[in-house]
């Protein structure tokens, strides 16, 4: 019983204070018929020493890679050591939602700074204090737009991450909102396909940028065709915000997505950092916590959770969302990460990612067993290509070079690069592609 603190005497004393002879007497309100009569086969207890060695055994077969060329919504970016140092402080990670602002100014101010940074990056004036992940944030964004203009059709670019699209559909299934996807042409959202679509009555248009294949979308053209609808700019590679035209520049009403790039480890897909920023008209429709600045009784700067009347604990069935706990510690990680990197560091990471992806592209282009798709289209740090390789041989070639290869999507591969990749890594990947040629 590792984490309970009573001595036998304590228990006896407390029970006698309560006039009970045994602990199980405290459970007398549970009818006997409902009581569990058996022991369950749950392994343990393990002492700390045993626990560590048991888990090390389990983990021993896990393979981590020196060079990662797989992205698709989860990117291997650099994380400064100070990010872990700060977020492993108990004052951050053991505290809960700042219900008592007087003893939570650390969390509150950090989240306020996070909101400011996300607003800066997206160009939009309002940010909440985090969501679960990019996919669920995109679904919530669609619900915001629906509540704003009460229209019940959503257009989603076919260039969105497939998990995001599935999540949007799952969330919207019972709301009376219909979801229609816009097809792609030459790798990006097909503007001409919009010509045939009746855009009046469309609540929102959801575009991912860079899209799932890494291509940079022509969002101005899309906005031009769908003027009346709320533009929802989604990104699953938040690092791109540092160097690409801002969502606000495109007239986005809402920007959302995943800021995993900002200091969150890959960790098999979670926890990551969902975010939402929006224009002022959407402020009262935002889901989740929002931190605001005010003063205390002595007039000193202080921060609190604000606009709580939007939320489930007050508005119940009329709430803007059911979200309660968010991904606050991931937002703390992002705030520390962005503070450390600064604009210069962040833009450097972004440009290096772009540079490495293009180096890889240039190296693949001349290979006989490689057909890069939609050549000439501008891409960020990912691009699709067809490979003529023996799949099994390719997997073996990659593994022996300690490389995580591109994502295999039926029919083609999606290559990604970040600032973490080296020239040598790119050479090794090229060798593997050559070696596995059919």
């Amino acid at each position, binding site marked *: 019983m590792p*984490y309970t*603190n009573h001595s036998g005497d304590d228990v006896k004393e*407390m029970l006698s204070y*309560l006039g009970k002879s045994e602990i199980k007497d*405290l459970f007398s309100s*549970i009818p006997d018929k*409902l009581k*569990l009569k058996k022991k369950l086969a749950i392994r*343990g*207890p*393990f002492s*700390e020493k045993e626990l*560590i060695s048991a888990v090390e055994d389990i*983990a021993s077969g896990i*393979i981590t890679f020196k060079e990662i060329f797989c992205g*698709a*919504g989860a990117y291997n970016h650099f994380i400064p050591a*100070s990010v872990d140092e700060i977020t492993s402080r108990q*004052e951050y*990670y*053991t505290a809960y939602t700042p219900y008592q*602002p007087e*003893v*939570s*100014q*650390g969390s509150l*101010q950090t989240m306020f700074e996070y909101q400011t940074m996300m607003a800066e990056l997206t160009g939009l004036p309002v940010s909440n204090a985090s969501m*679960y*992940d990019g*996919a669920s944030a995109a679904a919530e964004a669609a619900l915001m737009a629906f509540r704003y203009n009460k229209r019940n059709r959503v257009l989603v670019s076919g260039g969105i991450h497939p998990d995001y699209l599935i999540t949007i559909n*799952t*969330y919207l*299934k*019972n*709301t009376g909102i219909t979801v229609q996807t816009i097809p792609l042409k030459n790798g990006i959202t097909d503007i001409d396909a919009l010509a045939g679509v009746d855009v009046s009555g469309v609540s929102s248009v959801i575009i991912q940028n860079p899209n799932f294949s890494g291509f*940079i979308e022509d969002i101005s053209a899309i906005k031009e065709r769908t003027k009346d609808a709320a533009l929802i700019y989604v990104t699953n590679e938040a690092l791109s915000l*540092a*160097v690409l*035209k801002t969502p606000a520049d495109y007239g986005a009403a809402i920007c959302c997505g995943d800021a995993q790039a900002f200091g969150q480890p*890959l*960790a*098999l897909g*979670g926890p990551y950092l969902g975010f939402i920023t929006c224009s002022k008209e959407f402020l009262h429709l935002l889901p989740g*916590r929002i931190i605001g600045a005010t003063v205390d*009784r002595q007039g000193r700067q202080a921060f609190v959770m604000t606009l709580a009347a939007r939320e*489930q604990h007050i508005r119940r*069935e009329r709430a803007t969302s*059911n979200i*309660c706990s968010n*991904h*606050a510690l*991931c937002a703390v990680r992002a705030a*520390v990460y*962005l503070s*450390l*990197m*600064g604009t210069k*560091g962040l*833009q450097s990471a972004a440009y290096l990612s772009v540079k490495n992806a293009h180096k890889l592209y240039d190296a693949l282009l001349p290979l006989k067993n490689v057909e890069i798709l939609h050549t000439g289209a*501008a891409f960020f740090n990912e691009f699709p290509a067809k490979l003529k390789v023996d799949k099994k041989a390719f997997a073996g070639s990659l593994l022996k070079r300690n490389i995580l290869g591109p994502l295999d999507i039926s029919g083609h591969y999606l290559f990604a690069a970040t600032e973490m990749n080296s020239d040598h890594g790119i050479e090794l990947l090229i060798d593997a592609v050559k070696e596995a040629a059919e």
Partner: protein
Amino acid sequence: MSEKLIFEISKAGRSGSFVPECTGSPYIPEDYSRKIPPRLPSVPENEVVRHYVRLSSLNHGLDNGMYPLGSCTMKFNPKVNEKIAGIDKFLNIHPYQDETTIQGALRILHELGEDLKSLSGMDGITLQPAAGAHGELTGLLMCRAYHTNKGNPRQKILVPDSSHGTNPATAAMCGYKVVTLHSNSEGRIDPDILKKNMDDNVAALMITNPNTLGIFEDKMEEIAEIVHGSGGLLYYDGANMNAVMGYARPGDMGFDMVHFNLHKTFSTPHGTGGPGAGPVAVKRDIVPFLPYPVIGLENNRYFFDYSGKETSIGKMRAFYGNFLVLLKAYLFIRANGFAGLKKVSELAVLNANYLKKKISHNFITPYKSDTLHEFVLSAQNIKKEFGVNTLDISKRILDFGIHAPTIYFPLVVKEALMIEPTETETKENLDYFADVLETIVSEAEEEPSGLHDAPFTTPVSRPDEVRANRKLVLKAFSLPKEEDQG
């Protein structure tokens, strides 16, 4: 003293060196390029670290002192779990790696799922949901899919008046109307009231057991009969699962689905508000609707099982779940084993009952029923007699190095104080908390006006919340664009 904003200590030209410098790219067309760089802080590493260390010192964390926040289960977060979750083999695995390279991680997820099924008496599980409320949404979407599959999605969800706000909010997101059931004088669901509200348009009854008052719904069998009799489902909000581990299982109580709050029952850190994890376990009839993929095991090989895709509700998020959080819950379960988990519930209940008896003479006990791991008192007597309300009391508690309990919830109790000490507090800590409340009550008698100004020793005093709501300041500086607009 307040800490400056990070933007205020920023000075152009200062920065750390984390990645090689790269100042532009010929590959991003001019039309697609950012025109004005974001105004991120320009601060050297040393000062960034100091800034956030100073900020952290303004927080009350669990390791600073007691944190008896009712319903949130603020128990000790084992440090070894943080250490293990920080190793390379867990941190640096990509969600799209081949299954053969992550067998150990999948094994952990699978074993966690099996243990949670076993603890709750259920047949299937999803680990995708990122939090309790996300689990509720997953559960009710499955509930709707289940009924739709039977020909009628039904229209209503029943919740007791003591329910958490996420219950009705979730029901609304699934297109359901919410009907609130009034609790009886014992603080329980009244089977007669339930009967009156039950019909074949009710999709489910959502309850916690023990409920938010800490009281066990002892008429559970009758409740289950009534709900199932009309074809409805029973949803178990697992927020209070930590009260009954090893003593009772939702599955045996008649529940069809249950979400767990791993950050509550299984001690994964609350992280100033998340990330948590909210797995949902279900009975056999609901299994076809689980989000995909689930974690499968065949011939000693763990895999992502997509076989349920056709009937599934879909996905609740990208990828598979909050892996690092799930891992910590797994470690907590292993460190305890079955006997330890049972002990967790026993001592949580012992601590709560001990504390309740120690302090309840100062307050009104709104319901006389026995309680388990938490309890709710009302300070209505103190408000009436001395004009000191629950907010004043909770603020004063902060001065003694203890976090305040949950206040003004559940809504059925006026001036509510909802207290959950958890199993990881010693008798001495409980005695200290009782003494603190004793002191505060005598202060209320002797000098009530002073308490309106509490707390006195915290980094800031009560913030002006009216101003925070009316003069909205939601970020450090306005964007130039906004200023242009006026």
